């Protein structure tokens, strides 16, 4: 435990004093504040003379006034923070000759990887909590509306999901820093995987769906074809952490979303849609959690799996000077 704490403390200090982290953190904080501020101003204008609706406070985080909302921005750029925290975690120690020095101290070898991972998760947590708190403060001053208990809980769940999401990307970067000796190689591999999973998989899902269930010029039941097309696209897209996170966080921050799937819409007939529109009340938090439970489990699982693989590879790797 002594080694773990020592490495954890040092890594934490390194993260907070590194220029690359400070720059990226400043960028994300700045964009988040701007989008939330614009959302706040827009909400204030729209709410004038209107009876106070429910869950206004959460709209600060998910209202898309500028190009994107804060939630969308974190889903897109959050991984970069994770990658920056982990891409040179092990291979820099190895190339600088400090890894052998570290593990020749009376500590277990896993203290190195555990300390680095925990310090990264702590950094991500501090970063997200501070951004959400500052935006909440903004919101209080700007809108003059105090968040309800449920809104606070929803924000807490949102922060938790975000921590797992960014930690997954940090785990990927740490894994690559163990697998590749070159720092540039591990950085490039991490970014390449991020680009592939964030952009190409969703594109590929569309292509695959078009191939397996084409929408144009198909005979037979059009509705069934649309559902099949959408199902294929949705299944493939769910293989990306970005889709898992986006759907989960959007459902948690927006209580009016009662499903993460667009299939539900397609499956309903016209009378069902009319009937459903009468019951558009916001979901309680517990129900929203049920809706996103598979997404949460998948996010947590891939984060832990990624860490477990990193751990095993690091422990089993031969040490050579």
């Amino acid at each position: 435990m002594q080694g773990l704490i020592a490495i954890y403390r040092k890594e934490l200090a390194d993260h907070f004093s590194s220029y690359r982290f400070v720059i990226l953190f400043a960028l994300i904080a700045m964009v988040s504040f701007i989008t939330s501020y614009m959302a706040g101003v827009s909400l204030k204008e729209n709410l004038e003379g209107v009876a106070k609706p429910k869950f206004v406070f959460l709209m600060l985080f998910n209202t898309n006034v500028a190009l994107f909302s804060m939630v969308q921005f974190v889903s897109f750029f959050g991984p970069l923070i994770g990658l920056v925290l982990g891409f040179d975690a092990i291979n820099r120690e190895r190339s600088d000759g400090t890894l052998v020095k570290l593990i020749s101290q009376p500590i277990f070898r896993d203290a190195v990887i555990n300390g680095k991972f925990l310090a990264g998760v702590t950094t991500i947590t501090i970063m997200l909590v501070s951004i959400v708190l500052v935006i909440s403060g903004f919101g209080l001053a700007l809108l003059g509306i105090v968040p309800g208990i449920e809104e606070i809980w929803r924000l807490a769940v949102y922060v938790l999901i975000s921590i797992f999401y960014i930690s997954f990307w940090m785990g990927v970067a740490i894994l690559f820093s163990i697998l590749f000796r070159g720092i540039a190689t591990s950085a490039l591999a991490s970014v390449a995987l991020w680009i592939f999973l964030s952009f190409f998989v969703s594109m590929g899902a569309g292509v695959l769906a078009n191939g397996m269930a084409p929408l144009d010029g198909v005979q037979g039941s059009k509705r069934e074809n649309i559902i099949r097309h959408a199902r294929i696209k949705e299944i493939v897209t769910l293989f990306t952490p970005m889709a898992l996170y986006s759907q989960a966080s959007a459902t948690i921050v927006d209580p009016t979303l009662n499903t993460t799937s667009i299939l539900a819409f397609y499956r309903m007939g016209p009378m069902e849609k009319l009937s459903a529109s009468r019951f558009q009340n916001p979901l309680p938090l517990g129900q929203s959690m049920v809706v996103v439970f598979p997404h949460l489990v998948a996010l947590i699982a891939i984060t832990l799996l990624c860490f477990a693989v990193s751990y095993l590879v690091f422990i089993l790797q031969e040490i050579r000077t």
Partner: protein
Amino acid sequence: MNSKAIIETTGLTKNYDHQTVVDHLSFRIMEGEVFGFLGPNGAGKTTTLLMLLGLSEPSEGSVSVCGLDPLRNPKEVKRIVGYLPENVGFYGDMDALQSLEYVADLNGMQRKEAREKGLEALRVVGLTEDVYRQQVGTFSRGMKQRLGIAEVLVKDPKVLFLDEPTLGLDPDGALRLIELIRSLNRDRNMTVLLSSHDLFQVQKISDRVGIMIRGHMVAENSIEALARDKFGVGDEKYTLEEIYMKYFRED
């Protein structure tokens, strides 16, 4: 030096990718002695040191350090053995004292004790007070080697493994480092395993030497005994370099 073996290996073997790097190595190092560990590049010296520390798992054979198996008791072994790797690395943004405090922290020392041990180690290795707060990234090679030894000394080890400690040092720096190692052995009764290509310096301080070639220990004895064995006379007439080359050419 006494007759109690502090390090003992029996049939120690290491295979990397179907290649035998260390081949059934058996030797003993006595408590309080300076053991010169010689051999050409790629002979398997560093791999042997890593196995003695428990950082690399032997393919065959056994190791005992102070009566402990490094694989079963890695923390205990690493607590009593100080290891200076061939290319010791430092965190360039830390200063000398911070580096030592970090090592002390890894060894479970409290902040006050870490500071005291760090300052004492810096004094022992002869680094002057004006560099205590200097970033390690600005240190010369010689200063880094001294700091490396200071990091090893922080935990007050019983055994020192030094892998090429004089590599890249100027003659004066190498001489001072060798004198430091000799004083640590003499004053603190530290057992020293010194792996080096600087045969002149090794001859000056080693009680015994071991010559390792292609994973085998081809000779292990005092320099005088090796000289007698190869040339039929004592070591006054032959340098360690000549003795080493004789073994090297014969192998």
